[in-house]
């Protein structure tokens, strides 16, 4: 097989870019999940060890990181439901673009609400 195909299977636009975003957010979430199980496992080492590591999650820089993580999770969740609709709903493939804009809109609303809540905890000393 030639390394550079003459044509391409990629069609761009909403379909391809939502697929790219789904992959990237999925990988990000997976790596956080590995770390998250490890940090939670510190409860079996000692309460002090767990509290010391969790304290790192409460500083402002990590707070912004959590915002990014939740943003990735919320997009992956809503777009995942859209993928299911495309696969199982008769009219799914026809409305996949409209559904993506629905996903983006719901994501923006969810993240606006979550940002207000989370940033006021992280920066406002709750």
């Amino acid at each position, binding site marked *: *097989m030639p390394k550079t195909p*003459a*044509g*391409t*299977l990629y069609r761009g636009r909403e379909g391809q870019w939502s697929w790219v975003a789904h*992959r990237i957010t*999925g*990988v990000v*979430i*997976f790596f956080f*999940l*590995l770390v998250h*199980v*490890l940090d*939670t*496992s510190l*409860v*079996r080492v*000692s*309460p002090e060890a*767990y*509290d010391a590591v*969790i304290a790192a*999650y*409460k500083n402002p820089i990590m*707070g912004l990181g*959590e915002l990014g993580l*939740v943003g990735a*999770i919320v997009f992956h*969740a809503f777009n*995942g*439901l859209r*993928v*299911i609709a495309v*696969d*199982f709903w008769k009219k799914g493939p026809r409305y996949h673009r409209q559904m993506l804009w629905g996903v983006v809109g719901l994501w923006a609303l969810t993240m606006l609400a*979550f940002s207000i*809540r*989370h940033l006021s*905890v*992280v920066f406002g*000393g*709750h």
Partner: protein
Amino acid sequence: MAVPTVESPRSGRVSPGYSRTRSSRGNFEMGAWLFMRLSGVVLVVMIFVHLWTSLVAGDGISQVDFGFVAGKWASPIWQAWDLVLLWLAMLHGTNGVRTIINDYAEKNSTRMWLKGVLYTATVVIILLGTLVIFTFDPCPVIDGVAHVASYCPTA
């Protein structure tokens, strides 16, 4: 510029290079495809509740400490919740990364190595997490020193 045409996968005229049938694979890939959708729906609900209880409700992330975990895992419902979440999320994530490795690693040996590392990490993390949930002690005694908390018996 002429737009290259790509035959429909069902046309039966797909070039052999794009063929995805491996007779020995059986229905595994279809099972994996279905698992992603079924576990995905469950994970959306379970993870949103997980995020709500730890980052939104109460005092948000500032409330999370050893006592918070002890309070949650005092209930068998939250223990079961976190156990199911651990298994479903790890299997869903592992299958997703497996798909990505299959897509981008072209050499057989590279694919084999990457998937070996992936599956090792998956087994270790699932076993570790499961063990932690089942052996959690809210009032541990470490080096003869008992943990002091309102919910622990005083010596």
